[in-house]
């Protein structure tokens, strides 16, 4: 059973990895990475790393990928131009060389445990209790450094992605400040709709000042009963 699950999960994981690299649209790349991450979580479960698998699904496939999707939707991941021919040939060749080197390094290392099924299973291996105890005893310093790193990254992201005024050149800012604005813009009165009332009053005044001639002309041209009654009401 575990053999079946191993091959299923590893085939999905490798297919997802190829999908990330091959697909042209970044949106589909992110979705392929989500598949890959979930398949990796299955592999972690097969290795009896329950807590790491849960964290993988919740934090990685959940939160981080949602962040990715938001940014892809915001930036609008269009199709990209393919890389130059030299890179397109040399890149996979380099990757192949790295893969061969890794195979030699890991399988040729002569470690006796590599061909075995691992250490005998102890009850409680990989549970949150064990991981938490390790984090708060032997690995306290890495734990604290990781939390500090998260804080720095959060502040850094806010600073980087902020809409900043300082980069605008001064002339542009001057122009925007000196640009004449209509009265009442940016005031509470505008928000309360005072401007619309004032505009209506001004229109009425203009109508009265314009005299009855124009009004009568308009009435004759349009000939609509609604317009005449409206005009009569305003004049009266």
């Amino acid at each position, binding site marked *: 059973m575990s053999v079946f699950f191993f091959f299923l999960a590893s085939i999905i994981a490798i297919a997802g990895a190829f999908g990330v690299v091959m697909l042209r649209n970044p949106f589909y*790349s992110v979705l392929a990475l989500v598949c890959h991450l979930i398949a990796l979580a299955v592999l972690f479960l097969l290795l009896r790393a329950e807590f790491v698998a849960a964290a993988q699904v919740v934090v990685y496939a959940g939160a981080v990928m949602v962040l990715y999707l938001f940014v892809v939707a915001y930036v609008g991941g269009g199709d990209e131009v393919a890389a130059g021919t030299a890179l397109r040939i040399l890149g996979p060749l380099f990757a192949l060389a790295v893969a061969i080197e890794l195979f030699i390094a890991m399988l040729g290392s002569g470690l006796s445990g590599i061909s075995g099924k691992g250490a005998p299973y102890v009850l409680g291996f990989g549970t949150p209790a064990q991981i938490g105890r390790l984090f708060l005893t032997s690995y306290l310093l890495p734990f604290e450094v990781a939390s500090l790193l*998260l804080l720095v990254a959060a502040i850094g992201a806010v*600073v980087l*992605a902020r809409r900043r005024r300082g980069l605008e050149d001064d002339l542009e800012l001057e122009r925007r400040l000196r640009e004449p604005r209509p009265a009442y813009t940016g005031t509470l009165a505008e928000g309360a709709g005072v401007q619309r009332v004032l505009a209506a009053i001004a229109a009425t005044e203009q109508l009265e000042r314009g005299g009855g001639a124009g009004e009568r002309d308009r009435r004759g041209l349009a000939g609509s009963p609604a317009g005449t009654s409206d005009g009569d009401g305003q004049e009266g």
Partner: protein
Amino acid sequence: MAIGWYLVVSAVIFSTGAAGVLTRRNPLVILLCLELMLNAANLALVAFARMHGGAAGQVFALIVMVVAACEVTVGLGLIVAIYRRNLPIDVDEMHELNG
């Protein structure tokens, strides 16, 4: 399954990610390929933890996940900043910091 199989899968995923970093030009996809490489390292760490029967490898894997989350945050912040300044989202165009 023997532990060696997991290491083989890890090596394949790592080199796929390396190929992606080298051949793609969209910084978003390059970040995704970096995630692939980090995950391959995670798989190897967890496999070795299983081999030794100690949970230290899983602790390292969790720390790697934290580092990956930080990298994603800063990288996506950079991409959003690039987009805001109306620059092309293409690593070959962003070569002003070349030596």
